[in-house]
């Protein structure tokens, strides 16, 4: 069987595990900012997607192209995908790609995948780790008119087909799909492996390929904010007050017993 050609879409995001108090909204620009010492990361589900592709490469062999759209993409962050075993990194990087919606994002990614040309499987996260839309993967599939399966927790490639375990409400289902197909990946697939030193060193030497809108046949008016259908009008932080009453005791066990008494007194239980 010829090598499987895979594309993995990875987005650079503000670290979703940063403490909630670190997130600040600038209402003038409608942007979220974090303290500078909190570094951006690759989206969690995008990492799971990367791991899904690597598992296939382990078994069946293949080529993994990583695709990321944005502006000012930190090379040391995104190159992790090469260090763990990605073969090629393509960045759609330009100011005009910024502040798009799911439509303009998926459209540009789909056009880039068209330009890549040959692909058997496209992997995306089930949702991004910042804007949580959960649309881009399915959008790419619709634009390319290829089948899509969501919430993959296990993927195997067999005879030109993918055999996918999809999470469903009360368990999972095994679904088969012929190539080419788009799969979105969920957390149960498992964490992205660590990069070996050799991988890190090889990645350091590789340069990403950078494409501008014109490279994928698009006008700046078709990408990013200019190409969007859904417009952000306001970004804000809901206010809430901390109101926790800490129940104490001589020992943790006593505190536990006191908690029961407290809940009874306040008629919560």
């Amino acid at each position, binding site marked *: 069987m010829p090598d499987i050609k895979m594309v993995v879409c990875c987005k650079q995001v503000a670290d979703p595990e940063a403490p909630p108090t670190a997130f600040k909204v600038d209402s003038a620009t409608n942007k979220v900012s974090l303290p500078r010492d909190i570094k951006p990361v690759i989206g969690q589900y995008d990492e799971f997607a990367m791991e899904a592709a690597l598992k296939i490469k382990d078994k069946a062999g293949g080529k993994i192209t990583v695709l990321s759209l944005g502006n000012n993409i930190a090379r040391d962050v995104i190159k992790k995908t090469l260090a763990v075993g990605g073969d090629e990194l393509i960045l759609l990087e330009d100011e005009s790609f910024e502040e798009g919606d799911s439509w303009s994002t998926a459209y540009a990614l789909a056009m880039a995948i068209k330009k890549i040309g040959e692909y058997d499987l496209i992997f995306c996260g089930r949702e991004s780790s910042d804007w*949580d839309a959960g649309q881009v993967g399915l959008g790419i599939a619709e634009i390319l008119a290829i089948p899509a399966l969501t919430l993959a927790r296990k993927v195997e490639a067999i005879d030109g087909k993918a055999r996918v375990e999809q999470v469903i409400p009360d368990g999972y289902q095994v679904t088969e799909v012929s190539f080419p197909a788009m799969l979105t990946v969920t957390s149960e697939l498992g964490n992205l492996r660590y990069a070996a030193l050799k991988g890190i060193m090889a990645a350091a030497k590789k340069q990403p390929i950078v494409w501008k809108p014109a490279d994928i046949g698009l006008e700046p008016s078709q990408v990013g904010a200019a190409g969007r259908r859904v417009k952000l009008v306001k970004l804000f932080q809901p206010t809430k007050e901390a*109101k926790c009453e800490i129940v104490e005791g001589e020992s943790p066990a006593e505190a*536990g017993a006191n908690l029961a008494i407290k809940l009874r007194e306040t008629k919560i239980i």
Partner: protein
Amino acid sequence: MAEYKGVLIFGEVTNGKLASITTELLGCGRNFADELKEDLCCLLVSDKTGETAPRDAIVFGADKVYTVEDSLLKEYQGETYIQVVERLAKELSPRVILMGQTPVGRDLAPRLAFRLGTGLSTDCVDISVDSETKLLRQTKPVYGGNAQAIFICDAMPQLVTIRAKTMSPRERDDSRKGEVIPTKIEINMSPIKTKIVEKVKEEVTGIKLEDAPVIVGGGRGIGGPEPFKTTLKELADVLHGAVGASRPPADNGWIPEAMHVGLTGKIVAPEIYIAIAISGASQHIAGCSGSKTIIAINKDPEANIFREANFGVVGRYEEVVPAFTTKLKELLAG
């Protein structure tokens, strides 16, 4: 250009009954329809939609209910369902389409948006009609819940998925009149490229999370599968509640995926949510912030969960929880 009119709801049916998310959508859709002075339509898709669910859709606010039955629609499959909703959306050309942020809605809504060439806001927790433009202001939590965004979409139809338990259903009104319109939509099998070969049920015993008045949620700090069956289960039993979890226990296979609470899991709103060894990441809180009372047990006094909880105990759960359970038993017996 086609004229876009009315509000269409994609309804869901579970065990022959209208899903609670659908009554919530009907409640909020009814308000828009009244405000716009247009019809509220509901689409029900299944192998057999039966009589109860279509009737109930009217009772809870729909003017017209389109039922599409086909043995091919017995189980949800993106490729078959999209054919039905795309056809109906094109025929009715509603100005608004509402779906639930449910397993089906998450899979179906983006497909539909891209087919129709329109925009979509997912997981909205608030929507209102802008009095001037008559467009929907769509509010969606972003950054895991650390911020909220308000979107407007001027492409038609305006497509939105709505988070469970954020909208209020109307009171049941059995005198409401409406029309049930059985609709035949031919499913074309030639573009179907996916095949479900097996379904495996992971049994969850006891009360369903969504229905439980009390939920005992365990986190990564629980350390393994056993305490979910013993320490946490015993506490849940005393309170006639259910055991739930944050994402790591589900990822680690300590508990079935169906017990995972949060942005990417279940949205719950029990009377009492007891978070044990859960740090309180915003993505977890997104799933339980509607709880009436949140109680946190965590060994780290700085854990974010104490910013969300009403009551808290700082300590190792192995010591705190058994004593808590014993005392509760005593108090509830006495």
